[in-house]
């Protein structure tokens, strides 16, 4: 196929996708979060501008890494001239939570070709995940779950890149006192609320929050990993205790 026919077929399939109802629903669901994502992206962009890595590299990193927390965690390390493996180890620790996301997405996307699965993976983020699981708590036969995911992810990706690049370019013109970062934190807090389905998830979230604060001094952002481990351990124990209690009843 020639390049122009590739472009034409891509355009046709993109247009067809954009008309599907679940794609539109996903896109609509992402809109309320846009304010939080935009604020957070702006903060991340300003941080990148101030790190002194230069405009081109900062934009390059935003587009290909597309993981705000990993990018922000890497900035002080890069500025301090830390060895490459330390930056990568930090990226790994901050990104391990994505593994849990991909685990939960598997039943929804396993039937797709591998190339599509990888493409969808690139677009995974905290926002998409929470909104997706709110919309589809369980896999149901029939709907094209990937359409909802894509609608959601495309809006999120667009808003995030637009705001982080604005932050990178505007840089020093945006004062820290505006509290933009706090809007991002509030967005994540709201997302956390959407995930609290039952009392054991609620307690697990509190366990994770306390562990993350207590272990904050650990290097490489390992506190997040400690918090996840603590919450999973609590969850397993809670499930077992409930099973034992229900098993004991006549």
């Amino acid at each position: 196929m020639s390049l122009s026919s590739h472009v034409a077929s891509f355009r046709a399939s993109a247009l067809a996708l954009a008309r599907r109802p679940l794609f539109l629903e996903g896109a609509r669901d992402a809109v309320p979060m846009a304010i939080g994502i935009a604020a957070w992206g702006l903060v991340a962009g300003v941080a990148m501008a101030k790190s002194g890595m230069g405009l081109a590299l900062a934009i390059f990193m935003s587009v290909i890494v597309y993981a705000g927390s990993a990018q922000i965690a890497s900035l002080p390390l890069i500025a301090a001239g830390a060895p490459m493996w330390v930056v990568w180890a930090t990226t790994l620790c901050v990104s391990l939570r994505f593994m849990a996301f991909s685990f939960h997405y598997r039943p929804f996307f396993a039937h797709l070709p591998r190339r599509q699965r990888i493409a969808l993976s690139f677009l995974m983020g905290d926002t998409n995940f929470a909104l997706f699981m709110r919309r589809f708590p369980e896999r149901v036969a029939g709907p094209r779950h990937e359409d909802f995911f894509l609608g959601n992810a495309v809006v999120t990706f667009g808003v995030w890149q637009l705001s982080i690049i604005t932050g990178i370019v505007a840089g020093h013109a945006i004062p820290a006192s505006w509290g933009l970062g706090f809007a991002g934190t509030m967005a994540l807090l709201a997302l956390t609320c959407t995930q609290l389905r039952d009392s054991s998830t609620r307690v697990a979230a509190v366990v994770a929050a306390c562990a993350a604060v207590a272990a904050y001094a650990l290097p490489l952002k390992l506190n997040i990993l400690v918090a996840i481990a603590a919450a999973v351990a609590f969850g397993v124990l809670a499930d077992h205790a409930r099973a034992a209690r229900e098993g004991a009843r006549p």
Partner: protein
Amino acid sequence: MSPLEIFFTTLGMAAIALLCRAFFLLPDQELPMPRWLREGLRYAPTAALAAVVAPELVLTQGHLIDTWRDPRIFGALAGLLFYAWRSSLFGTIVCGTGVMLALRFGLGW
């Protein structure tokens, strides 16, 4: 780091982030996993979100805040209350940030 080093560091970061996101979607066959871990992982995404949020609310420069007059706490509480009332994501963000800004600029906390 030199620009070239930053370039390669960035490529590695992109590869690591993508590998983590694709981890369970890459294999065609289901990965074998003990049942307790399969069930425990149900808690991981919520825990990750809570673990990212909590330090942002109660730590300043890596230290636990030592005053109750911190606008972030009240902003977060306002956001939580709003969510409990309306379950609106947009409202939670606006209400929480609004209360935080009102306390910071109104009362000078």
